[in-house]
């Protein structure tokens, strides 16, 4: 089953990830590689129909702004990109809201499910958490 095309990966990992999870833009090569592996792994576990829907939505997200701004999403200014994403987040059509939620979930998974980012979040759990309670 095909996951995303290289163009779709480029769109997800650079344009979308940078706006949705800005900390992902600071990833080094290893971080970017882990991001892609995590998202690819998640997509591989999804039914083919769902992956097709995600790919379709990525296409809509990229091209729809051209109707208003004359440019695809990846060619807009960051401020306009955010405005477009906010529109989709609050869209009058439920399927569009769900689509944006799904894309956000993938980006957050690729970003925040990496154990390596936890210290930067000040998230430092311990198997012996009680020992830290009154530290």
């Amino acid at each position, binding site marked *: 089953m095909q996951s995303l095309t290289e163009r779709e990966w480029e769109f997800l990992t650079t344009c979308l990830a940078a*706006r949705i999870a800005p900390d992902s833009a600071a990833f080094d090569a290893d971080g970017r590689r882990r991001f892609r592996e995590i998202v690819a792994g998640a997509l591989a576990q999804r039914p083919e129909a769902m992956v097709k829907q995600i790919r379709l939505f990525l296409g809509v997200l990229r091209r729809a702004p051209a109707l208003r701004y004359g440019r695809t999403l990846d060619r807009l200014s960051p401020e306009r990109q955010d405005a477009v994403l906010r529109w989709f987040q609050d869209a009058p059509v*439920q399927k569009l809201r769900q689509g944006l939620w799904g894309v956000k979930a993938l980006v957050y998974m690729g970003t*925040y499910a990496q154990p390596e980012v936890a210290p930067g979040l*000040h998230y430092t759990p311990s198997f012996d958490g009680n020992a830290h309670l009154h530290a």
Partner: protein
Amino acid sequence: MRERSYDVVIVGSGAGGGTVAKELAPLCRQGLSVAVLEWGAKLPDDAFTGRELEMAGQLYFDSGGVLTAEGTMTLAFGRAYGGSTVVYTGTSLIIPPATVGRWAVPGIAWDDLAKRSRKYLAENNVHLQEDEVLNENNTLFRDGCETLGYRVQQFPVNLKGCKGSSLCNLGCPNAAKQGTNRVQLPAAEAAGVEVITNCRVDRLGDRELFTTVAEAGYGEPSRWEPGDYRVKARAVVLAASAVNSPALLLRSGFGARLPVLGRYFTAHPALILVAEHDRPISSFYGHPKSFYCDHFTASHGFLLETCMYFPFTTAKNLIGFGAEHAELMRRMDRMQMILVLAIDPALPENRVTVDANGDPVVHYRFTEEVLTALLESMRASARIFFAAGARRVHAPASASFFIGREDASRVDELIARRHLKLGRNSITSAHLMGGCRMGTSPADSVTDAWGRVHGVPWLSVADASLFPRAAEINPYVTVMALADRVAEKVRADLPELGHA
């Protein structure tokens, strides 16, 4: 296809299946054979790493992200030796009398359920944790509720040697949580019950199950070699969850004789709210779920619970994105969290069906009352956060990403119905109930009050799919109490049951 034969086969090893296994284990001493068929793997103790994606993938169906058909709610339920008892937080409550009254199932009495529940509270070492191990994420919730005059109670929990990892929902790394994987299943196996892991039940026939064993790629290997098995039994007990028990029955053709099979599914739809304090608080050290507020259950139809989740889970539950989202995520040490749960009605259109492959599909429509309950629960939570001293609050249905403490008095205005939109907000459920509801007649139920499927004397159900309506509390102890009843009836009926 290989063949096996047992006197009793139990499908599923969670709160229901594990309990039935333990209660029927004495049959083994009488020379009878009992087996549990569990879809998930058994993880050795050192496999509980606390790594979010790794554990979610190994312990939950679809890594905890099963979507309803409408795409508006994600369902989280366990797939493992021990079922969802491996991944819950172990809060242990007896169902209230008023709830049993609303269930109105002839033959189900609160006194009986309470007595059986207390047996499992004792077996699972359920107790209140001492004050010194309660973290601030929890005590701030308690203090905020008390300041506002909201009734707040401490959760009894099923722990032994808890070290406060806060990783309960990813499987306890300290073997402290007393789920069926620690208590009932080991006792059952010691008495001679066989537990076959990595075993998916594809279809039910007349006193036979068609199953497939396939290695998971993690955990301990199954007792059986990979392959297809036909398993014969004199009695079968389904405890595969409120999603998989009805689904198995539907794809096995039982829907024709049971018109409400799969229907009346309830879920306690839930949302997470996050507040940020001015200083680090102990949120991910200590047990994550020590208190609940049932002040509004009767009046407004919602419950509030403390909770603490992991980075990805937290991130995807926040509305919004970009700089504000990242800013909040970078201070997980200052986060306080509340889980809000709506008490949803049992509607026939909320149901489990199966697709062309026989896989379950959950259909769920949110009523306006449930959405209103979620809205009110968010407002109550925001007030609790501010009463506890939070600097700012992130509520999924607010006009802006943050509500600052300077706007605490405007919570009702800022958290508004127009911002609560399905598909925008991340609604989840871990309390899956109904689909094989108890009752007296096949016209409006699937089983009798003992969990026996109408018209099928050899077949019972022993999980939360029995619930005719929502439990209104965490369901797991109630599942165990009902499973105890099921086991009692199976024991009584077994002499009259033969193989096919």
